[in-house]
């Protein structure tokens, strides 16, 4: 069953065309990686799926409805969660922002809301930090809290925009392992510069640079040939397969980068 269906979608800011004739179908429990150069339209595509931007041409259907109508079933982790770190707010309060609708008490939050938020924190392994000020967490911990906030609404789809851009390598690995676990019950879409995520965790990859090209990479052995005995995959090969040769920043890369697959 497909949870997101995008057909012939074009989008422009003022007169600058950002996305052109994009077609994409995301199946239930997919782990889709959206990659592409800066300014290529990755974040814009996400914001269209979330209904933050309105499009004129084409169609987007999320869980069978138009984007703004299925918002309560989508969990979203925005880019730049490092802003506003001075803000005096506790972790649990951030997570409870994820709630939508429902009964609410006269002041503050209901007991069920607190329980639900604690549950979401436990899912990401941050329940011990519920009463901590958000600014005193590390980048990786803060990102987990933002994932908990998204999980608070019990989403069917979880969308993350550059979730690991400001996190150290160990933290990145932990975030992706967490997503892999969540992927057992939730469809996951990750926007990322980091190509290693595709090779290790995603089963579908979409390259966005005004146009979108799309590939099933669930069978990695067949999709990529390995180099030598140490089992490296070639990233350039992946980029070429996804149509990235039209992207200047990728072509200019003189030497292929190799990355290990475990």
């Amino acid at each position: 069953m497909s949870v997101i269906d995008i057909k012939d979608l074009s989008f422009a800011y003022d007169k600058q065309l950002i996305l052109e004739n994009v077609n994409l179908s995301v199946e239930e429990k997919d782990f889709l990686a959206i990659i592409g150069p800066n300014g290529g339209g990755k974040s814009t595509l996400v914001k269209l799926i979330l209904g933050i931007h309105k499009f004129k041409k084409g169609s987007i259907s999320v869980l069978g409805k138009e984007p703004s109508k299925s918002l309560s079933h989508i969990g979203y982790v925005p880019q730049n969660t490092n802003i506003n770190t001075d803000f005096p707010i506790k972790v649990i309060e951030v997570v409870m922002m994820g709630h939508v609708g429902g009964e609410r008490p006269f002041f503050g939050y209901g007991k069920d809301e607190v329980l639900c938020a604690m549950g979401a924190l436990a899912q990401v392994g941050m329940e011990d930090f519920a009463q901590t000020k958000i600014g005193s967490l590390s980048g990786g911990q803060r990102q987990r809290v933002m994932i908990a906030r998204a999980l608070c609404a019990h989403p069917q789809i979880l969308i993350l925009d550059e979730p690991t851009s400001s996190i150290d390598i160990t933290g990145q690995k932990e975030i992706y392992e967490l997503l892999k676990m969540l992927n057992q019950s939730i469809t996951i879409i990750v926007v990322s510069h980091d190509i290693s995520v595709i090779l290790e965790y995603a089963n579908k990859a979409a390259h966005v640079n005004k146009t979108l090209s799309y590939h099933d990479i669930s069978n990695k052995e067949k999709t990529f040939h390995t180099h030598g005995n140490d089992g490296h995959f070639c990233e350039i090969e992946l980029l070429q397969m996804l149509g990235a040769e039209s992207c200047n920043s990728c072509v200019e890369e003189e030497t292929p980068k190799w990355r290990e697959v475990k």
Partner: protein
Amino acid sequence: MIEALQFEFMQHALLAGLLVSFAAGIIGSLIVVNRMVFLAGGIAHTSYGGIGLAVYFGLPIFLGASVFAVSAALLIAALTLKKRHRMDTFIGLIWAVGMAIGVIFVDLTPGYNVDLMSYLFGSILAVSSEDLYFMGALLTLILFVVTFWYRDILAVSYDSEYAALRDVNVRFFYTLILILSALTVVIAIKVVGLILVIAMLTIPVYIAEKLSNSLFSMMFLSGAIATLFTLVGLWFSYTYDLTSGASIIIVSAVSLGAFLLFYRGK
């Protein structure tokens, strides 16, 4: 100082100081976390336009200043929600034009001209009973709003884009914060004046922010700190015969300096 308390004007001054300090602490917190300090400055100065109009038409000063400041807040809200990147230009414009309108209308008023200085630097020793009712009513309104809509205001202030995705009416709460800021600025004019109000809205808040781990505690701690500064400032003003508004601000600034030294040492 104790013997001064038997004078009605001194009782009024203390009560006004208390009410205004708490309102300024709560609203100042919202202004600071929403990065609206420049904006609040603009509203404070433009409210002089309302004072000028009120003087010219013989209306109550509070009424004129409130209507004018709230109109300016609504105008700024409409402009900034549409053109966020040009916000500072608009605020600068509204800042100056409001003051100019005020000056012109005071010029046009025949006969005795009001003392401009008392609005620029405050006149806490001349607070009337009506002023106190107005201040009390506004503080009640503020307490009601931040209690009833705490979670929405928190969501909009912390991450407005996410709040919008969770069905929170960001425009409504942004405008509401601006309107309450405008009204708070108007009552604070009586205590510290429209030029000094910005310090009252930010200095206690800055200290409270460092000591709080939630917006709620920050708002009430700011209120308490602002009250302390106002009372100490008032004492200095009475004892050494200094302008009350300026005394309050100097007390606040010196305390902030001491706090930063001590806090860094920790």
